[in-house]
């Protein structure tokens, strides 16, 4: 006996617990007596905490005052943000001369302009743009920040960087509005579309050379005042050190990881001992070694730039950590992939660059970003060896006579800044993971 209904049963509406807000509350927060009690208690704790912070940090807080004593006079139980506000320039730029601050800002802006095309979908040749960011931008920014006389090497690199920046920007604008890139459009503009490839290339090279000469002559008249590194500080210094560390960590780490997995004993042993040596010592020890012990081995009166020493130390340290992350990623790639690559005739670098690394890097993203975030926070250790990075500045506020003892507010402000930066980094890494694993969701 079969009951067969010829008509399709009409769909019932979803149960109330799934659609209404009250239903949701009932299901998630008040499903039993115990849960209800826990919910109420938790809400109360959150309320007390948030209210306390709100009253201290906003309601009772003092925003404008000449010194801490005045803050106390206005409100004894509130935060004294006035001190942090007065110190904002120190916190962001350190002791950088105030009339020259535009150079730091311009440097930051240039980085954004330079890197923005990497995120725009219609722009081509992204690899070239990425490489130029790593190899040319640092020189331009470095000169902008440090200033002084340009040696002949600096003049050439700075001219190259400026041309690259102009080229990048034009390329991006053309790319966004018309698709295509700068080289094709230049050839079309010159009416050489039908000329031979060699002819086209030579024309482009000639334009490049002409542009280089023009820019080189123009930049000769452009110098900015020297700002010694001792005046660098605050958030700016933190970003410079960790920026260089982050940029050099990945290439350095890949080389070390490949070295460690190499079949050549010398390379393997050297890489392994290098990695193990730097990984088994705390960063602060490396920093102390680099800044205080190193000059003792040098001839008397020979003073190396402390900032350079610190940056090199941070780079080596982060490369070693990165090497292990990369090695973990490499080990996740099954042997079959190597064999498949060999079958189609790829050599070592072909296998690594075209088959293994692209897959491995995708797996590594969470760990890589994790170490970048860790590195950004670790660089605050340089405040211990006497560089006034952001932490050094935040701690100095409590010693400045008008603001004596003001230490909670600056540290909270610093925590907030770090949270914002790290959160953006981690969100971006999530986005990257989703984008790169698009194939897996097909």
């Amino acid at each position, binding site marked *: 006996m079969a009951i067969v209904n010829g008509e399709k049963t009409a769909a019932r509406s979803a149960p109330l617990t799934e659609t209404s807000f009250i239903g949701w509350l009932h299901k998630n927060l008040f499903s039993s007596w115990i849960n209800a009690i826990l919910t109420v208690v938790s809400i109360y704790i959150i309320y007390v905490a948030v209210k306390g912070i709100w009253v201290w940090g906003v309601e009772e807080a003092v925003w404008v005052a000449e010194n801490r004593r005045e803050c106390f006079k206005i409100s004894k139980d509130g935060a004294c943000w006035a001190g942090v506000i007065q110190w904002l320039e*120190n916190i962001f730029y350190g002791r950088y001369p*105030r009339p020259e601050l535009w150079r730091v800002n311009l440097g930051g802006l240039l980085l954004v302009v330079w890197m923005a095309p990497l995120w725009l979908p219609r722009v081509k040749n992204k690899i070239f743009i990425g490489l130029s960011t790593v190899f040319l931008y640092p020189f331009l920014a470095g000169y902008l920040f440090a200033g002084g006389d340009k040696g002949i090497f600096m003049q050439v690199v700075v001219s190259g960087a400026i041309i690259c920046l102009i080229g990048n920007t034009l390329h991006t604008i053309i790319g966004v509005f018309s698709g295509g890139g700068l080289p094709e459009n230049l050839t079309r503009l010159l009416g050489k579309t039908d000329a031979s490839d060699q002819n086209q290339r030579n024309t482009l090279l000639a334009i490049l050379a002409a542009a280089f000469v023009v820019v080189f002559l123009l930049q000769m008249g452009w110098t900015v005042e020297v700002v010694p590194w*001792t005046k660098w*500080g605050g958030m700016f210094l933190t970003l410079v050190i960790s920026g260089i560390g982050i940029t050099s960590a990945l290439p350095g780490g890949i080389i070390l990881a490949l070295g460690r997995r190499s079949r050549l004993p010398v390379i393997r042993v050297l890489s392994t001992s290098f990695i193990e040596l730097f990984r088994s010592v705390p960063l602060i020890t490396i920093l102390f070694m680099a800044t*205080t012990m190193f000059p003792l081995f040098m001839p008397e009166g020979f003073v190396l730039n402390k900032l350079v020493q610190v940056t090199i130390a941070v780079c080596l340290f982060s490369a070693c950590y990165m090497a292990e992350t990369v090695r973990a990623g490499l080990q996740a790639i099954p042997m079959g992939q190597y064999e498949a690559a060999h079958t189609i005739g790829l050599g070592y670098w072909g296998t690594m660059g075209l088959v293994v690394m692209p897959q491995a890097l995708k797996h590594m993203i969470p760990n890589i970003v994790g170490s970048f975030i860790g590195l950004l926070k670790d660089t605050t250790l340089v405040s211990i060896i006497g560089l006034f990075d952001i932490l050094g500045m935040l701690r100095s506020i409590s*010693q*400045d006579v008008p603001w004596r003892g003001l*230490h909670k507010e600056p540290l909270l402000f610093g925590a907030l800044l770090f949270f914002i930066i790290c959160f953006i980094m981690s969100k971006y890494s999530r986005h990257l993971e989703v984008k790169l694993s698009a194939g897996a969701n097909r």
Partner: protein
Amino acid sequence: MKPTSFITSVAAIAAMTFAGATVALAKSTLEIVKERGNLRCQVGTPSPGFYNLDAKGEWYGSDVSICQAVAAAIFGSKKKLEIQSVSSQVRFTALANGESDMLSRTATWTLLRDTQLGLDFTAVNFYDGQGFMVPKDSGITSALDLKGATVCVLTGTTTELNLADFSRVNKLNIKPVTFEDSNVRNDTYLNGGCDALTNDKSGLASNKAAFPNPDDHTVLPETISKEPLAPAVRQGDSQWFDIVKWTVYALVGAEELGVNKGNVDDMRANSTNASVRRMLGVEGNLHEGLGLSKDWAYNIIKEVGNYGEIYEAYMGGGKLGIGIARSGSANALWTKGGLMYSPPFR
């Protein structure tokens, strides 16, 4: 060329090279500083009264003024100065390895440091000493009343050792509560985490001034340690040692003689006091022994002021001062019962 002559010439070249190297090494600190065009003066991480950063990123404080005075003595301008802020763990290394030319920071002059760390202390510019602070309503009026008390103290400092000594000698059984960070120590003290707070008296004064209710606390009269603070230089360059030492004496001497920033031009032009005339370079050749210009002391006073002015500005009641009374303390002039005394300028 015969082998012997070849060897001789190699030896000669080697000898010349080494001689050159020795000459280069033997260059005096003054020459190095003059060649470089600025003085590298080491201070510590910011500490109220002695060295601080202001909101514009400039250094100020009494020890910074000593650095400025030495720069003014050498170059005639206090601006030819690079202040290096170095943490206390590496302060002596940074002087020994040539990174800094001199040290002007709160380093107590002790026999051990003077003899075993390769440095020489010049002339005391501040006499400090360790003391105690208690809440007024505790009723404690003497450090000897602190029997069994808990005392907040920074760890890893001589302050901690002095406290232990004091407790043992007087059988007080004081329980130290140690901290790494002075701000956390102060907060704990304010919240009642310990009965008393111990620190150098200059530090106590500046801590107290930063409390929400400074009048609720009192500094006990006892001073349980001697902390003479003096600029220090590397051992083995007595000319440089003399320059730094006499810069401090010029600051004190100027105060003794009534020369200050405001009247120094007038004094140089019109003073009939022979000591003043010698000091400011109007008469005599006192500068020659130091290897400085004739108006070195004039430049110091013109650029920085005398000792009293520096004290008033950063240690005393000035706008940036931490409010330690000078009269009656060891830092008053010897004519007023203190220990500040300059050898004669003649």
